[in-house]
């Protein structure tokens, strides 16, 4: 829906098995449980790293396979 309007989307995911079934164009698989998409509360550095890794996917060609985040 957003992509069709020219907005590039990127996503974090904690459940890549499900994300593969939805097949969004850019997703980062993070090694954290549901409820902790950006890693840990009050850990600004980690949250920023995850965000940057997610946003960096926007500059790449779309690929529906989630990219693994390495902390």
């Amino acid at each position, binding site marked *: *829906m*957003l*992509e*069709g309007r020219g907005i*590039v989307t990127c996503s974090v995911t904690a459940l890549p*098995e499900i994300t593969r079934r939805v097949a969004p164009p850019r997703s980062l698989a993070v090694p954290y*449980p549901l409820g902790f*998409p950006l890693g840990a*509360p009050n850990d600004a550095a980690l949250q920023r790293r995850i965000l940057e890794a997610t946003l960096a996917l926007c*500059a790449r060609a779309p690929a529906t396979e989630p990219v693994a985040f390495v902390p």
Partner: protein
Amino acid sequence: MDRLDELPFTLRTALRLYRWRRVSPIAWARLAHPLAECRVAILSTAGMVAPGQPPFDAAVKGGDFSFRVIDRATPVATLIDTHRSRAYDHTGIAQDANLAFPLDRLGELADGGRIGAVAPRHLSFMGSITAPTRLLRQTAPAAAELLVADQVDVALLVPV
């Protein structure tokens, strides 16, 4: 990362059997500018609302398909988690809403020149929508329209 087979039985079964929708084929968008010049908006499904906004309604059959607009100036610490799902641990978000609605982090990335700007408006949804037709036909086009009006280049999706 959670593996499906490590989740509680009822959740695991629901996730396995659910008919997940794909939005393909679709013409994927391309960045019109380098990331350092892009305006970025958050789209989170953590059910956060700003003070004074109505909470998401867990009683809506098929899932609450509405969304809340979160102004960029909203202090993150004032966001309220109204997602009723017990399928995930809410304690991290309770300590720091940036975990699922990273407005402060986005501001830091803009200050550091990693992105162009933080969008003026961000979108909050509640996940757990089992009947997504109204979301797809009504809410999503309205959400897209709002982001287009704000000249957003990138939507950062944060599902919980």
